[in-house]
C-alpha cells in the first residue's frame, strides 16, 4: 500500500464523518414539503393517511411527510425536536401546552387564518373546541388562536343498563339528575359479591365532577391561589373517598391497580363509571350488554352538574417556512367532513362541526342512546380542566402523587389537602413566575 492510498482512506473516513454530522440542503423547487407529527391507534393513523392523500390532491404543490410516534413518547420527541430547531410544521398540541409554547414563540397565531379561510366556517365549530387554544399572553381561553381542534371529547357517566334493570333502578334524566345521595344509594343496590368476583356499583368517581359540583376548585378564579383546603373541596374529596371507605360501593385504589375501572365495567363487574367520548368505539366491541350515558350527579349543596371536556389540537410551528400550507393542512384535518366523519365511525370523539354532531352523530343508532348528554356537556355544564389554565401543571401532579392515601383511608381529605397545600402553592407560584419571565 502506498502513502497515497492511506491518505485516501483517511479522506474517505473524514468525508463519511462530514456526511454523518451534516446534511445536504434540499434542492429548491416549486414543491413544498411539510412535516406533520402525531400519534394514534393503527386505525387513526390509517385514516390520517387517507385524509393526507386527499389534502395532497387538493393542494398538488404540497407533499406531507407524516410522522407518527407512540403516544407516550410524543412529548419527549417533540421537545427534543423543538430544542434542536427541527420542529415539525404541524403537530399535535395539548391545550395545557398553549401558554408555554405561545410564550416561547414555538407555535403560530392562527387567528387571521380562522377568520378568513376557504376551508371552514368558524360559526359551525364548537366555541369550546377552539377556545381551548386561545391565549392573549396572560389568560388562556381568550385572545389569539394557537391551535385548531383535532377533536373534542367529553367525559360522561356510563352505566350498565342491564344491571340497572335487574336491580330495578331507572337512570335519571337530563332535567332531573341524581343527587350524590341518590347516586350512592343506587350504587349500594348494585354492589354484590365478595373478593375477586365482587361487583361494584360505582367506579372511581370523577373528582372534577364532585369538587366543581360542590362549588370548590383546585385554584381560585384567576388561577393564582391553591384552594384545596376549602371545605367545598375537602368535603367533595372525602365524599369520593367514602364511596369506597364507608359505603363500600366503589373499588379501592389497590383493586383498581389490579384491574382498571374500564375493564371492570366491560366485564360486568362495575355498574357505573366515567368514560370519555373516545371510549365509544371500544365499548361497541367490548361491552356485551346495553349501556348508556346519564347526567352527572349533583352535590346536594348546589344542585349543579359539572364535568370536564378536553381535546387535542393541531398547531403550526412558527419556524415553519410554509405557514400557508401548514395552516391549510391543520384546517383540512380539523374540519374536513370526511375527516370528522371518521370520529363518528370509529367512535373516537365528538365531531368538531356542530351541524354534523347534532345530526349525523346523534342519529347513528349506535350506543350510547343518550349522546345528547355529551352535547349538553359541551354546550352547558362542561368545564376545562383546571390544570390547563396554568403555565405548567406541576402543582397538579404533586396533588395527585399521593391522592391514593386519601382513597385508601390512610389520611382524611382534610389532612391530605392541608399537607400538600403549601407545596402546591409554591409550585404554582414558580409557574406564574416563569410565565412572567418570558
Amino acid at each position, binding site marked *: 500500500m502506498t502513502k497515497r492510498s*492511506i491518505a485516501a*482512506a*483517511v479522506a474517505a473516513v473524514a468525508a463519511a464523518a462530514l456526511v454523518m454530522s451534516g446534511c445536504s440542503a434540499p434542492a429548491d423547487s416549486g414543491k413544498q414539503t411539510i412535516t406533520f407529527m402525531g400519534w394514534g391507534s393503527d386505525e387513526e393513523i390509517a385514516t390520517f393517511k387517507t385524509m393526507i392523500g386527499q389534502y395532497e390532491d387538493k393542494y398538488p404543490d404540497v407533499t406531507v411527510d407524516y410522522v407518527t410516534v407512540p403516544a407516550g413518547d410524543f412529548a*419527549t420527541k417533540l421537545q427534543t425536536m*423543538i*430544542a434542536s430547531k427541527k420542529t415539525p410544521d404541524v403537530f399535535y398540541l395539548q391545550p395545557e401546552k398553549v401558554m408555554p*409554547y405561545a410564550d416561547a414563540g414555538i407555535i403560530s397565531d392562527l387567528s387571521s387564518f380562522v377568520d378568513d379561510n376557504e376551508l371552514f366556517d368558524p360559526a359551525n365549530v364548537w366555541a369550546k373546541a377552539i377556545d381551548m387554544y386561545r391565549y392573549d399572553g396572560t389568560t388562556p381561553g381568550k385572545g389569539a388562536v394557537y391551535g385548531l381542534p383535532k377533536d373534542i371529547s367529553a367525559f360522561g357517566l356510563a352505566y350498565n343498563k342491564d344491571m340497572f334493570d335487574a336491580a330495578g333502578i331507572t337512570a335519571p334524566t337530563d332535567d332531573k339528575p341524581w343527587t350524590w345521595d341518590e347516586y350512592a344509594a343506587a350504587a349500594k343496590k348494585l354492589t354484590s359479591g365478595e373478593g375477586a368476583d365482587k361487583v361494584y356499583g360505582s367506579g372511581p368517581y370523577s373528582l372534577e365532577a364532585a369538587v366543581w359540583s360542590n362549588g370548590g376548585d383546585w385554584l381560585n378564579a384567576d388561577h393564582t391561589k391553591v384552594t384545596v383546603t376549602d371545605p367545598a373541596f375537602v368535603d367533595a374529596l372525602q365524599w369520593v373517598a367514602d364511596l369506597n371507605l364507608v359505603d363500600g360501593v366503589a373499588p379501592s385504589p389497590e*383493586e383498581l*391497580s389490579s384491574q382498571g375501572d374500564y375493564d371492570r365495567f366491560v366485564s360486568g363487574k362495575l355498574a357505573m363509571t366515567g368514560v370519555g367520548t373516545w371510549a365509544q368505539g371500544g365499548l361497541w366491541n367490548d361491552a356485551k350488554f346495553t349501556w348508556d350515558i346519564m347526567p352527572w350527579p349533583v352535590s346536594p349543596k348546589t344542585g349543579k352538574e359539572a364535568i370536564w371536556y378536553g381535546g387535542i389540537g393541531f398547531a403550526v410551528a412558527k419556524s415553519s417556512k410554509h405557514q400557508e400550507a401548514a395552516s391549510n393542512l391543520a384546517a383540512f384535518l380539523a374540519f374536513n367532513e370526511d375527516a370528522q366523519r371518521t370520529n363518528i365511525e370509529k367512535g373516537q370523539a365528538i365531531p368538531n362541526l356542530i351541524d354534523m354532531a347534532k345530526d349525523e352523530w346523534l342519529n347513528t343508532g349506535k350506543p350510547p342512546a343518550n349522546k345528547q348528554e355529551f352535547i349538553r356537556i359541551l354546550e352547558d355544564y362542561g368545564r376545562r380542566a383546571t390544570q390547563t389554565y396554568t403555565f405548567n401543571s406541576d402543582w397538579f401532579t404533586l396533588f395527585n*402523587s399521593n391522592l391514593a392515601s386519601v382513597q385508601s383511608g390512610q389520611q382524611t381529605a382534610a389532612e391530605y389537602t392541608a399537607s400538600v397545600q403549601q407545596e402546591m402553592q409554591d409550585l404554582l407560584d414558580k409557574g406564574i413566575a416563569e410565565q412572567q419571565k418570558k
Partner: protein
Amino acid sequence: MPTTALRSRRINRRERAWGLAFVTPIALQVILFSLVPVGIAVFASFTDWNSIRDTRDFVGLDNFAEFLGDKYFWIAAGNTLYMLIPIPFYLLFGILFALGSHRRTPGSTLFRVLFLLPYVSSIVALVVLWKWIFNYQYGLVNQALAAVGIQGPDWLGDPAWIKPTIVIMIIWKMIGITSIYMLAALKNIPDVYYEAARLDGASPVRMFFQITLPLLTPSIFFLTVVGMIGSLQTFVEVQLFTSDGGREYSAATITYYIWQKAFGSGQLGLASAAAFFFALVVLVLTLVQFRLSRRWVYEGE
C-alpha cells in the same frame, strides 16, 4: 548501521500512518459522540438552558443550588442507594448457581440457558410480566399468599413496597448473567489446586473457602463495580413500573429525576447539572471501590 535505521524509520512512519488511519474512525466517534456531548453537558450545567424557551444564559452555580435544595432530588438519591441492595444477593446466588451447574451433570446446559433467559429478554417484556406477578388481586404472589391466609400488599402501588418489588426483579434478572461470569471464572481454576488439596486431605468446604472463593474474587470485584454502576443508573424499571416515579416519589431514582427534568419540563441546564454531579459521585464511588479492592481481591502471585 545507517541503512537499517533508515529502513526502520521508514517502516515506523508507514506504520504510524496506517495506525492513524485505523484510529481515525474510533477517534472521531469518541470525539463526536462522547467528548463533545460531555463538554456541552458540562457547559450546559452552568446555563439556564431550557428546550422550550430556548434560553442559554450563564447562571453560575444556580442549577446546582436548585437541585441540591430540592427535596425530591434527595428522595431520589435515597432510592438510588436502595437499588444497591440487589448486588450482594445476585452475587451470592450467582456463585451458588455457578457451582451447581459447574460439574457436567445431565441438564446443566439447559439450566445455564434458563439462568440467562431473564438477562437476554427485553426489559419491557419482563416488567409487563412482573406487573402481572405482583398484581394486587390477580397476581401469582398474592394468590399464593392468599392460599396460606395472608393478604399480600399492593406491591406496585404502596410506597413501602414498590422498591422491594424492583429489587426482587433486579436480583432475578441479574442472577443469570452473574452465574455465567462465575462459571467462566470457575472453569479457569486449574484442577491441580484441588488435587493437591485433596491429597492433603482438605474438606470440600475448606477447598471452597481456600481455593475457589479467593480465585473468584477478581470476577466478584468486576461484577460489583459493574453492578454498582448499573444499579445507580436504574431507570427503565422505575419508568415502566410507575408512570410518575411512584406515590410520594417512592420509586424514583436520580436518573429518573434527571430524565424528568430534561424531558418532562425541558430544563436541560438543570438536568445537565444534576447529571454532571451524579457522574462525579459515581466516579468517586468507583475509585473508592478500586482502592478497597486491594484488601480483598486476589491478584495472583
